[in-house]
């Protein structure tokens, strides 16, 4: 039936008469005549399910997907393997069609899953508390900056250019309207320029934001930057890659006050950019200043353990204009997928995925450099993503690779004027040796 409306016209007419109305028109009596639509909306006509699905399939076929193409593109979204279990559990209607868990008696499933998610994020990042997730890594970073400015009562935010350009743009947009100031600093050899950071951080700096591994794939000296920030009473926010944290020292150990990042790599598909998942974790001193939903553990009237949304007095529905953030929702289903992913992989599995990412990216980089068509761009260590310098046009290279069913790395010149010829390549555990060897071979052929 049209519009998924179960009641027939007959039933609706009966309902109308039962409540003393004579026509459907009466239902809209409060809407002024002058603005009532008197024409049919210019939209497609209703279609049956087979027709709609055929249409969607036809549109989907116009896209090249990663089942057919080997994806060496990262730059903020990564092609990791997603175990079959995730789709089946996440599409259980009790998770997928449920509302926000404001009635804990009938949402212990969602609440416990979020509680487990919060715990996992803290374990990975080395932080004390985490929220139930934010829209994506970039907005999590922007909200962390806003929080830092509020906590420190300062307005300046330092961000090196090695942080993902799209994230930096989101940080800037948020800061501009809150009246905070973003100060961009430079890079040296693919890492944040430490001496410039040291010069620019003052008693007016609320926070330094860094990303490690950064947009070029290079690891930053987080501990050193933490010291620079803390010496002047500023906070340090680190945006990190969650899969890398199976191997790398976590932000907590390195001195970060807040750890954020993009959680898409944890069991969530590429999906043309969203929905993704911003994780946000902090030291316990910042607990009551954190934005976003938070789940806590408690007991019911009979002493049974359970979970509830808590610390709600921070949030918009209570604090209204004084809230740290206006955020209302979280990316609950994406966080659930991440929780299931981490549960399935566990200690051993995540380490294995991370190891293969590192080994394959190092193999790829070595072979590209050996080929003679590429030079190293930076000397810093890397995890699953690295930058090389190409002797020809990166645009032409990527176009040629596409014909071979390979999605090539990111053309850094799109975001950095001085980085023409720089190619940022991501190699996850999904890439086979054969795919990597093909990439190298085709890249060499193209450059001849």
């Amino acid at each position: 039936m049209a519009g998924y409306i179960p009641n027939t016209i007959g039933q609706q007419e009966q309902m109308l008469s039962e409540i003393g109305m004579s026509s459907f028109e009466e239902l809209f009596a409060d809407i002024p005549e002058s603005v009532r639509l008197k024409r049919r909306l210019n939209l497609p006509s209703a279609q049956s399910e087979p027709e709609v699905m055929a249409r969607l399939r036809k549109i989907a076929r116009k896209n090249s997907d990663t089942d057919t193409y080997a994806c060496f593109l990262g730059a903020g979204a990564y092609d990791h393997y997603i175990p079959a279990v995730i789709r089946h559990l996440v599409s259980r209607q009790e998770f997928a069609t449920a509302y926000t868990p404001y009635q804990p008696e009938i949402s212990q499933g969602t609440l416990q899953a979020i509680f487990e998610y919060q715990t996992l994020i803290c374990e990975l990042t080395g932080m004390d508390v985490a929220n139930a997730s934010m829209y994506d890594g970039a907005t999590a970073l922007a909200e962390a900056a806003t929080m830092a400015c509020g906590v420190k009562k300062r307005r300046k935010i330092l961000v090196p250019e090695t942080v993902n350009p799209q994230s930096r743009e989101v940080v800037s947009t948020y800061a501009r309207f809150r009246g905070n100031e973003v100060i961009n600093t430079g890079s040296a050899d693919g890492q944040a320029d430490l001496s410039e950071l040291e010069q620019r951080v003052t008693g007016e700096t609320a926070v330094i934001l860094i990303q490690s591994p950064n947009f070029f794939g290079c690891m930053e000296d987080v501990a050193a930057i933490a010291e620079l920030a803390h010496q002047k009473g500023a906070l340090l926010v680190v945006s990190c890659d969650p899969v890398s944290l199976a191997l790398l020292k976590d932000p907590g150990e390195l001195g970060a006050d807040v750890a954020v990042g993009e959680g898409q790599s944890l069991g969530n598909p590429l999906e043309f950019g969203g929905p993704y998942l911003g994780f946000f974790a902090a030291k316990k001193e910042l607990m009551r200043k954190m934005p976003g939903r938070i789940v806590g553990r408690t007991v019911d009237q009979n002493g049974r353990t359970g979970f509830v949304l808590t610390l709600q007095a921070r949030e918009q529905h209570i604090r209204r204009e004084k809230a740290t953030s206006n955020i209302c929702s979280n990316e609950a289903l994406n966080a659930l997928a991440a929780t299931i992913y981490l549960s399935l992989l566990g200690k051993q599995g995540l380490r294995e995925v991370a190891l293969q990412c590192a080994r394959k990216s190092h193999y790829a980089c070595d072979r590209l450099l050996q080929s003679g068509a590429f030079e190293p761009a930076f000397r810093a260590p890397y995890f699953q993503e690295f930058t090389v310098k190409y002797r020809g046009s990166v645009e032409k290279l990527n176009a040629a690779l596409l014909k071979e069913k390979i999605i090539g790395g990111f053309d850094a010149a799109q975001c950095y004027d001085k980085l023409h010829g720089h190619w940022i390549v991501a190699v996850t555990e999904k890439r086979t040796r054969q795919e990597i060897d093909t990439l190298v071979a085709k890249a060499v052929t193209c450059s001849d």
Partner: protein
Amino acid sequence: MTDPVKTIFNRSVPGRTGFSLPACDVPELEPNEMIPEQFLRSRAPGLPELSETDVVRHFTGLSRENYGEDSGFYPLGSCTMKYNPKMNEDAAALAGFEKVHPLQPEQTVQGCLQILFELDKMLAEITGVERMTFQPAAGAHGELTGLMMIKAYHESRGDTKRTKILVPDSAHGTNPASSAAAGFDVVEIKSDKRGNVDLEDLKDHIGEDTAGMMLTNPNTLGLFDEHILEISEAIHAAGGLLYYDGANANAIVGVCRPGDIGFDVVHLNLHKTFSTPHGGGGPGSGPVGVTKKLVPFLPGPLVEFENGVYRFDRNRPGSIGRVKTFFGNFGVIVKAYTYLCSIGAEGLVQVSRAAVLNANYLRVKLKDYYGIAYDRACMHEFVLSASSQKASNGVTANDIAKRLIDFSFHPPTVYFPLIVHEALMIEPTETESKETLDEFIDAMIQIAKEARTDPELVKTAPHTTAVSRFDETRAARFPILTWHRDEG
């Protein structure tokens, strides 16, 4: 002593894993052969160790402690918990949408661009505005984006004294919070006795410093403002802009358009009006639409269609800048697109009609048992009050909500809007059958009776769930936000 709760942590058994990878086909270097020691962690993160069966059983078990829209009636006011069509899920899961990297070359994602382009047109047509952006990931995010554009618009005209946003006292908390996040001061306008914006109070507060007004119409009382055209005129005459909070759009889709009423900026909630599932709290999508004069300020890129090819227009110097990475919650966008293809122009009109009918049906049948805050025809939702129950026997809106759980219904929204005491905000949506509505009416009447004859039963509800009435004070005073390793 048995564990109070089974979590992935206390189910963990060392050595288990639920996942397999092919053997590594490249040289198996050790971490310290690739990355210097000082970057490597010495202690593994405390992740659990579970088999695939463990994981499936655990999360299946958790799901059974939940209540979804597929489980039953979900009359949450202003949430529009309508049926989530399964065809939408299948569409979004097509490999051509799910397995596509957002930074792929445009010629390899023409289908994705087509969805964005066509849905932009459809939503603009539905709301009566010029163009949409899909970047905002949720309604609140859309509000923030819209308000930022309003600010940028005034600033671009050198009009820097417009510092205030007017918001009705019935507004959702995100309205003032978003206004503050966009750098505005918030001025609250009272509602009158009929639930409309009080025109006198409005005129007292409009001035040279008015940047704009945020309204949801119908409002959170479920009432279409009887003076909406006067409000629009007053705000515009003062040089302000009018923002439409689309949370309640389900009442008017296909019947009237915010753009025609005079709204300059609108946001829609795809997870409300456009049937995409709530996911237990997200993901949603909050596209924002604007009239012509504000189009330059939209966060980009936008999709254009020329000579049979879709492309991104990135050359947008007036834009306020990105509010999110990439293009928005694309997976959610596909679901909304599929829904609109399915119901079509004809379906949309029937949606609002049935939504408003269902709400009035409940209202008329329940108003004699509970206080009705504003006794006039409502739109897609209405607000009851449990004030008299509270006064006679101390039975509160919260108690009534909890007791409804025993009747297998999800409670309505309670204690909102703030201007009604002991509020119960009820929105049935159009996808509920008369049978379900009648069952709900019977339950509510029963509970009203219990509130008189057996108040303790209501005050200690729910009785049929595994857990009941949590100590939220304790949760907030002594927050335990993670499962510590030494517990359980």
